């Protein structure tokens, strides 16, 4: 099929808080991906790095940083940054080079060493930076935005604290045996509901942590793949769309939405448009999905995602969850990896990790959390400053 690239190899450094340099995590993931692909580092034509904003200059030029750490080889390079969508932008960069015939085989790699506690803005006085101002003037941390969305579900759809807790419990069961997960612990409803409130209605165990981690993929043209393997897992779509004006849902790191007074609302709200663009590229729909990895920055946000990717109409997500549709064994398991609830967020590596999970699932290599016969999976996420991504993986 036109516009597909092959995933020859994937690799991840276990997520955690290891206290080491981010480069190390990325190199480990890259070496694992290369070995998984059976491709040598010096055969890589193009390195697509996912950058990190919290590790100084080397983090901004991630592609070159990892290329140097692996050993300068003269490969072409590009570095991407798009908040939580960074990993998918890096994947898309490699994919575009391959589809344009500019390279045969590419390495995509991202890693982070994350701070403890709340993400804080870049240091110094930055009164022109909305990300600085939202802390300065409001104290609007990331969980504040997640809390607003969660409360909205309660007010409009009658969602309960127990619904949100059930997402965490489900994901903790999924991630319990995942060797790459940071938190390999099965939580009960009681555990979750007893954890301290952070941003009402969200409690500590319902908000994802920040983690160290690294992930990598080796992508190639279908022609290159066919010389080495039969039936590779492929990327059928990558969406990195921005919102359409006016973006009328309040989002990080903004003080206000756009105004719809003069223009009316866009046809598709931003969060719905992200997966929609991926479905259109792949010629598929939500009914085709065997599983999905969605960005559970909070456990309540996972419910919004069910609706945003078209698994059910608005207001029905809690029913999908409580009927078991999105639990392993159900109709369309969501976050079999364990999600951000089991990993915490390592920003540039996270979207790549979502694709790694789908790859292992489609290959039947997800022992302990396997979705039987999985052939089509979708990832989706959203990041601040208008970023979002979705990748469709097929076999």
């Amino acid at each position, binding site marked *: 099929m036109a516009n597909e690239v092959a995933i020859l190899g994937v690799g991840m450094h276990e997520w955690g808080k290891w206290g080491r340099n981010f480069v190390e995590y990325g190199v480990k993931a890259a070496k694992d991906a290369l070995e998984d692909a059976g491709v040598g580092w010096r055969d890589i034509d193009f390195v697509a790095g996912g950058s990190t904003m919290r590790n100084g200059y080397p983090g901004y030029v991630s592609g070159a940083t990892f290329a140097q750490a692996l050993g300068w080889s003269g490969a072409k390079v590009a570095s991407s940054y798009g908040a939580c969508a960074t990993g998918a932008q890096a994947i898309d960069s490699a994919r575009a080079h391959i589809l344009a015939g500019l390279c045969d085989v590419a390495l995509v790699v991202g890693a982070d060493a994350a701070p403890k506690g709340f993400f*804080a803005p870049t240091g110094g006085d930055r009164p022109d930076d909305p990300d600085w101002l939202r802390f300065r003037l409001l*104290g609007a941390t990331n969980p504040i935005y997640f809390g607003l969305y969660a409360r909205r579900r309660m007010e409009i759809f009658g969602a309960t604290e127990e619904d949100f807790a059930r997402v965490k419990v489900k994901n903790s069961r999924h991630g319990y045996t995942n060797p790459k997960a940071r938190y390999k612990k099965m939580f009960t409803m009681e555990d979750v509901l007893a954890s301290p409130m952070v941003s009402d209605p969200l409690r500590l165990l319902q908000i994802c942590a920040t983690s160290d981690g690294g992930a990598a993929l080796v992508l190639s043209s279908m022609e290159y793949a066919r010389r080495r393997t039969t039936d590779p897992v492929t990327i059928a779509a990558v969406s990195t769309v921005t919102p359409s004006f006016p973006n009328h849902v309040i989002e990080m790191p903004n003080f206000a939405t756009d105004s719809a007074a003069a223009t009316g609302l866009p046809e598709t709200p931003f969060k719905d448009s992200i997966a929609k663009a991926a479905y259109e590229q792949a010629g598929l729909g939500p009914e085709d999905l065997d599983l999905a990895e969605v960005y559970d920055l909070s456990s309540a946000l996972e419910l919004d995602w069910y609706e945003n990717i078209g698994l059910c109409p608005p207001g029905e997500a809690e029913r999908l969850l409580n009927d078991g549709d999105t639990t392993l064994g159900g109709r369309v398991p969501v976050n079999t990896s364990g999600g951000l609830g089991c990993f915490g967020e390592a920003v540039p590596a996270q979207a790549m990790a979502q694709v790694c999970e789908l790859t292992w699932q489609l290959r039947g290599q997800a022992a302990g959390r396997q979705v039987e016969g999985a052939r089509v999976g979708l990832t989706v996420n959203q990041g601040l400053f208008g970023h979002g991504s979705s990748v469709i993986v097929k076999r």
Partner: protein
Amino acid sequence: MGAAKPRKPAIEGWFSMDADDPRLLGTRCTSCRTYFFPRETVFCRNPACSGTEFEEVPLSRRGTLWSFTNNCYPPPAPYVAPDPFEPYAIAAVELDEEKMVVLGQVVPGVATSDLKAGMEMELVIDTLFEDDEQEAMIWKWRPVAA
């Protein structure tokens, strides 16, 4: 007894300090009539518009509560958190005429348990923090008295 510290806006030009009718200060593109807050003054951000002229507009003082939450823990710098820290609520309020949702802290003494989506909220000016030189002021939302 020293003089009271001067009250200064924590950020210039974003809101009026009028005690009787405090307003957020936005702009409106003269070509397409779209509102902007925070102010846009150079290029209109409506992609269908090439406007470069803006008029200053005070935004509606009242709106409808879209959602709310709170900070149970002190936010990190650059927020100046008082010690001891008191949890405070944050509200997202929808302005009817401007068709936009604006965030703001909720006035002290109003907890999330006092709030409900759909409530009418109004803008007030209150203290953000105090230091040696000034009382820094900021806009906040409070429920309109029933």
